[in-house]
């Protein structure tokens, strides 16, 4: 299950009336939104939205009914077990040879402010200005110790750029921490604090 689908399930299950609606769905063969609303004293739109969302997720099936009046839907439970199973490793940024070989350095006039730790050689946070004009606001990015060490060893603007792997090695950071370094690099690149430079022609 992907994260977004799991979030939809979680959102539906977190409703106060979720358990009561599921109780109706389990005990009734088929039920309409108006019946649910009347039984649980909910607004019909609330019951309708909840049932539609479950139908979209495939938990319910719906069939159109015509009983000499406006057509409506009756909902039937299709799954008696709900299992939210997310593999968190799917969002892990596995460092590839390519991503680690990107050559980077600080961008000139980045306008970022770096706060250095008092007793150690690393940077504790970076303050970045985002937005333009009246929308301009300060954003403070707190760094983990490996990220701080990485940034401490980042080449200066106009200095010879280094590969991410090279900086990791120079800063004495364990290679297993590369994903959090890559995350920082992507963030700072987005805010124009870091620039990528192409490989020099051999």
């Amino acid at each position, binding site marked *: 299950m992907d994260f977004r689908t799991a979030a939809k399930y979680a959102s539906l299950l977190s409703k106060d009336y979720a358990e009561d609606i599921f109780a109706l769905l389990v005990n009734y063969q088929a039920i309409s939104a108006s019946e649910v609303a009347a039984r649980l004293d909910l607004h019909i739109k609330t019951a309708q939205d909840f049932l539609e969302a479950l139908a979209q997720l495939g938990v319910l099936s719906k069939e159109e009914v015509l009983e000499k009046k406006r057509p409506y839907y009756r909902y039937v439970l299709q799954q008696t077990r709900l299992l939210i199973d997310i593999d968190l490793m799917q969002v892990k940024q596995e460092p590839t040879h390519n991503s680690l070989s990107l050559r980077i350095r600080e961008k000139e006039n980045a306008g970022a402010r770096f706060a250095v730790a008092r*007793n150690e050689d690393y940077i504790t946070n970076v303050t970045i200005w985002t937005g333009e004009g009246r929308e301009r606001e300060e954003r403070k990015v707190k760094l983990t110790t490996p990220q701080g060490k990485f940034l401490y060893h980042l080449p200066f603007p106009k200095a010879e750029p280094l590969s991410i792997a090279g900086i990791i090695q120079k800063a004495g950071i364990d290679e297993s921490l590369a994903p959090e370094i890559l995350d920082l690099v992507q963030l700072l690149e987005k805010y124009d604090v870091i620039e990528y430079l192409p490989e020099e022609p051999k």
Partner: protein
Amino acid sequence: MSLVRKLKPDRNITGALVPLSMLPIFGIATLAFGLPTGLTILAILVWGFTLYYLFVFVRTRNYPQLFTSAYSAFIGYWSFLLSTYLETSKEESQELMLAYFTCLIFFGVVLGYFVLTRKFKWRGREIFELAGESVEETGNGYTSRPRPVGKVDYSPEQIHAFARFCSRNLIALPYMTSKNITLVPIKMGEEYGRLLGFSGDYRDATWVNFDVDGEVSVHIAQKDYLDYRESLSFDQLCTSLGQVFIDFFDLYNKGEGVRVIDRMDDLRIPVLS
């Protein structure tokens, strides 16, 4: 041979303004309350300087500072003595005046010697000139981040001794923590703010840091970077500043601390700059 300076000419008068500010205060006090009161206020101000120089001596162990403290104590004492004479309308004894002038000559000559031989001079400008000397490339690239410039082998005792040497010769003001020794070079005129804590956190100033593992890192404040005539390559400038201190450390470690002083004196930077 003419020396090509990398720094802009020093037009900072802060250093002179602080002692000179005593004169208008003395003048206004005299105008308002009469000469005896003016002299008493002058004595109090000069004694303020006595305490300041005593504090600088305690902080740096630079003996000319102790001498200046004694000198200002002497001047303050005579101002105070003169004010009491004027109030009681006593006649000044010739012996007392003779003692005053001989002491004044002694203090004046010794102080002049300290000034002319640069023993009283904060060496910040020399440090920045030496750092800029080897940097030819321009291109700015300023960043507020510190730069690691290398690793040096030393024992804690060696680096502590070097920090004391830098402090004693006013090369840089050391700040010591359990893991770091940070040397902050100070230019003439900036010493009041830095020593009295009006210049903010020393981590925002220009510094060279030696940590317990031998790592050396450098930070250059934007104000100091803008003091160079050209936008020197910032990366190289940081490396060069770190190298200046590493070279100084090597010389000091070999027992050739005097060569460090010679290197700075050879720049012939004006004594009050």
